[in-house]
């Protein structure tokens, strides 16, 4: 679905990506994680054709994103962190925008709007930031595009909406669709995003499914400060230490704590070079 090869990109003279490689097959909800300024939004914009690479190759849905071919754009929905919605009713917005998305499903849209408890009689410009986001998310999910890009989708959502967000997004995934969710709110995305891509200083330092991760490492909560060669990372948390250990034999029966895993990858990227296989 997405293939980036030896991709170079820079803002002015400062290079951000050098020889970036990424392969994203369809049918998953990818979590794109990284610290501020790591290049997450830039990567999403390169994928969507909003920025042009300096060199390298890129294929998104079979198109070169730089060309911004309408057939590619009508199969991508990108919900950015900051957006604008015109002063009009939902019905008018749909009338003006649905014709650009041939796979749009009106019934699914009505269902999502209802799940997010949005008032259809209200003008979209009168919605709060969170409601606007839920409206755009409903539109994006109902558009049935093969690629859905969400940049910080849970920012501005209240707690029940975050739960609803996870439920709705998970239910909308099909084998033909791929969702890429860029976020700092790792806790909001637990049990939703898988595989995980971690971008650090313009380099993808981690790209693996949680299943692969749990086969080779374990994240545990321990009372005492952990010791031993198998400890990749530990941090003090209330009640003890959150620890990431090498666990190729499956000694520890634990799930993967995304936040701890992320911190571990950032703290010692060499331990995870190329992702956990």
């Amino acid at each position, binding site marked *: 679905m997405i293939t980036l090869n030896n991709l170079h990109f820079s803002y002015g003279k400062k290079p951000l990506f050098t020889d970036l490689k990424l392969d994203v097959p369809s049918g998953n909800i990818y979590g794109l994680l990284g610290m501020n300024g790591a290049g997450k939004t830039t990567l999403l914009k390169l994928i969507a054709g909003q920025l042009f690479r300096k060199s390298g190759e890129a294929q998104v849905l079979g198109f070169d994103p730089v060309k911004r071919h309408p057939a590619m754009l009508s199969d991508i929905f990108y919900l950015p962190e900051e957006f604008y919605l015109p002063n009009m009713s939902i019905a008018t917005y749909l009338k*003006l925008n649905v014709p650009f998305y041939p796979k749009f499903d009106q019934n699914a849209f009505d269902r999502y709007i209802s799940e997010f408890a949005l008032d259809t009689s209200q003008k979209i410009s009168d919605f709060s930031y969170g409601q606007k986001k839920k409206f755009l998310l409903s539109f994006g999910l109902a558009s049935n595009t093969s690629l859905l890009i969400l940049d910080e989708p849970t920012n501005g959502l209240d707690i029940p909406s975050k739960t609803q967000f996870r439920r709705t997004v998970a239910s909308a995934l099909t084998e033909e669709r791929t969702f890429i969710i860029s976020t700092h709110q790792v806790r909001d995305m637990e049990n939703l995003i898988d595989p995980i891509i971690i971008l650090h200083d313009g380099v993808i330092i981690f790209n693996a499914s949680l299943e692969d991760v749990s086969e080779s490492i374990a994240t545990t909560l321990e009372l005492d400060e952990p010791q031993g060669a198998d400890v990749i990372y530990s941090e003090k948390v209330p009640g003890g230490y959150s620890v990431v250990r090498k666990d190729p034999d499956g000694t520890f029966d634990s799930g993967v704590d995304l936040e701890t895993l992320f911190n571990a990858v950032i703290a010692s990227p060499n331990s995870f070079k190329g992702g956990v296989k």
Partner: protein
Amino acid sequence: MRNILLLLKKQVYEDKKGLIIYASVVFGLILIPNLVMGFFGKLPSSQDDMGYLGLFGNLLFAGGFIMVSITYAQEMYSKVKQHAWLMLPVHAHEKLIAKVIYHAIIYPLVLLIFIFASSVIIEGLNAVLFSSSTPFLDMTDLAVWKMILNYLILQSVFLLGATYFKSANFVKTVLSVMVVSIVLSIILALIARVVYAPYAQVMFHGGISIDETTFIMNTNAMNLLETYEVIGKTIYWALLAPFCLVVSYFRIREVEAKDAV
């Protein structure tokens, strides 16, 4: 074609509020002075239609150029709106053509009908209330259509300015046109000085002085002048607008997220 029509529909819906305000202000600006003058018995008893024609010309050129100038700044270079502009599933040329149709064809025609309708209403009111009226705007007047033709050409320059500059597009376009005009004038003056050297007096020592009698009597000089006129008209009527449109197209195609201001 379908995408262009969809874009036009989208543009009209999104601009609807602004256009209604614009039309209301224009109508008010014509109506209120008329009513005031009528109330004090100062309405002109007879007047040619230059009043409405002049108003149409001002709104066509000044209003049209400002509208064209801000159209791209509001979308293509706007930090908040650029995302929707870039992700819209249409070709760059469709975005350009839709804007050109909207600003170069729909705007002048709607404005013409609007000013005509306003003149009919206002002059009707004048006739009923004050027993005095002046002619409506004559839509068949050749001067009206010459204005529209010139507007078609000149708006393409502002379209180029709109796509080239990222902010303050109108002012920057006007300043650029002035600078280009000055530079072209200097170049043309130097060329004229060389080509018409036999007819010109000392140019750099006491100004340009052309011996008109010799100049007009000389067939070669007159032929050259006619040739320049043909070249000038060809550039203006046939080349200027296509050049501006082609450059604008490349600007639209090459705009990136980092161009937003």
